[in-house]
């Protein structure tokens, strides 16, 4: 009997027990939110537009570089044990189809990415209430942006997973993530909106800028913009997973 995707995904999540990945998932967004808040407090500025300003200071830079880098590191951490000892031979000698291995790894990395967004959201809310005493709660549109971000990390998770699957090196895929983030930042600054359909790193970065009014964003969360993010995420993820599967299916193990 061919193992189901849910069984394979469950196995992948089981491998994350005691993994260093969780410290990245928790610490990276916390550091970014607290750094933004700290700068605000040190400069004795006020949050001119309340929750919006806090969101802007927490998310804009995080979305341009740290998020993509974090996903790159997570992918390398998730694949690293597979490249050790006899694990690679064992992985390739199971009855689990290659597509399910690639998909389950991508989903595991994306799930870590999704938790990272939730930690960010909670950190923004806690900081807003406890540190700045902002009235009310975070506007619902940022919950929607967070939901879109959960979807938008998928293509980067797929690309970084494919790279970390292919290369035994921990650092090389992370370097690619950094380069991807750099190209994405330049393209978004130049308001090249179409780049999100080509470069997964740009798609993730663009999703973080939703409703912020920065890097070519209108400042409004529109249905069209949201749909473009979801569609591009689905298409890019499927494309990368399909290519990675095809590549891996043809590749030999090292002799």
């Amino acid at each position, binding site marked *: 009997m*061919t193992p189901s995707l849910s069984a394979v995904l469950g196995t992948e999540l*089981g491998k994350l*027990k005691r993994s260093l990945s969780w410290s990245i998932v928790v610490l990276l967004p916390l550091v970014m939110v607290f750094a933004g808040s700290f700068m605000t407090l040190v400069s004795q500025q006020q949050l001119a537009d309340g929750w919006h300003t806090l969101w802007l200071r927490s998310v804009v830079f995080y979305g341009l570089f740290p998020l993509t880098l974090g996903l790159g590191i997570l992918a390398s951490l998730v694949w690293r044990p597979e490249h050790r000892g*006899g694990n690679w*031979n064992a992985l390739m*000698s199971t*009855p689990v189809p290659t597509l399910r291995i690639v998909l389950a790894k991508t989903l595991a990395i994306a799930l870590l990415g999704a938790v990272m967004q939730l930690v960010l959201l909670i950190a923004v809310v806690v900081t807003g209430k406890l540190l700045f005493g902002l009235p009310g709660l975070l506007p619902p549109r940022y919950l929607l942006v967070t939901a879109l971000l959960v979807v938008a990390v998928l293509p980067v998770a797929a690309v970084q997973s494919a790279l970390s699957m292919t290369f035994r090196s921990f650092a090389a895929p992370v370097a690619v993530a950094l380069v991807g983030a750099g190209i994405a930042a330049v393209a978004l600054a130049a308001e090249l909106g179409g780049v999100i359909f080509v470069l997964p790193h740009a798609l993730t970065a663009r999703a973080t800028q939703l409703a912020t009014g920065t890097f070519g964003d209108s400042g409004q969360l529109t249905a069209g913009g949201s749909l473009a993010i979801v569609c591009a995420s689905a298409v890019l993820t499927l494309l990368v997973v399909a290519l990675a599967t095809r590549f891996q299916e043809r590749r030999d*193990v090292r*002799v």
Partner: protein
Amino acid sequence: MDTVTTVNLTKSYGRQAVVQGLDLRIPQGCVYGFLGPNGSGKSTTMKMLLSLVQPSAGEVHIMGEPMNRRTRRRQLARIGSLIEAPPGYGHLTGGENLRLVQRSLGLDEAQVNRAVQAVRLDKQLDKKVANYSLGMKQRLGIAMALAREPRLLILDEPTNGLDPAGIEEIRELLRRLASRGVTVMVSSHLLGEIDKAADHFGILAEGRLLFQGSREQLFAAAVPDVLIDTPEPRQASAVLDGRLTTRVEGGSLRIGGIDNRVTARVVADLVGAGAPIYGVRREEQSLEDVFMTLTAGGRL
């Protein structure tokens, strides 16, 4: 019926052939000792059997069905393997590693327990694999391969890192599995590690199969020297001089590479020439001797 058959199995990298034209036949329910010096192509062959490496030429059939990239995942459900280093996630315990295998392959608790008991790892399951000795890692790797209750088990140097007692336990395990109908292919560069467990052998050197067959066939393949006991070995040697390569050893004349028919003619010639003979026998030889003969003293 043969569990594994290969036809002209070949692997080349550029102009360098690593494995050349192997025609393996591994009978069902046997322990097949796959022997050869380091670098002779054993691991590459095993990887081709598992479709981890695609052959440059030739075919692999497992249990009558072709083994290739299209069929491998289906085939692998009934093949357990341990290739090169043992698997295992160091940050998890042995028990957690086995539960991952159980979950991903949909195995039940009893299957995992049987595998654990077979390698006697029950008392080490709560320890992190990073803290395992090499021998314990090998046992865990074998348990992971056994848990799916395979019909074919492919083990590449499984006794690496094991102490003599551990090696004997693995031998016993292999024999037990074969008695239940599991076909076991086990490689080693040391004959002594598997000669007691294996009943069929394949001997590989420089990517070519030097020998394949049963233990009896292996003994027959390397004809032992004939020793002729005589008080006049130099006289006897002079009689055969120029026809056969002989060596005088004390009160005996040693003649290599002659079959029974030639032996009878030699004896007749010696008697005809008046050489006194009081004994003719073939030298007793161990499997180690046979192996050394076939691999040219292990230098191949």
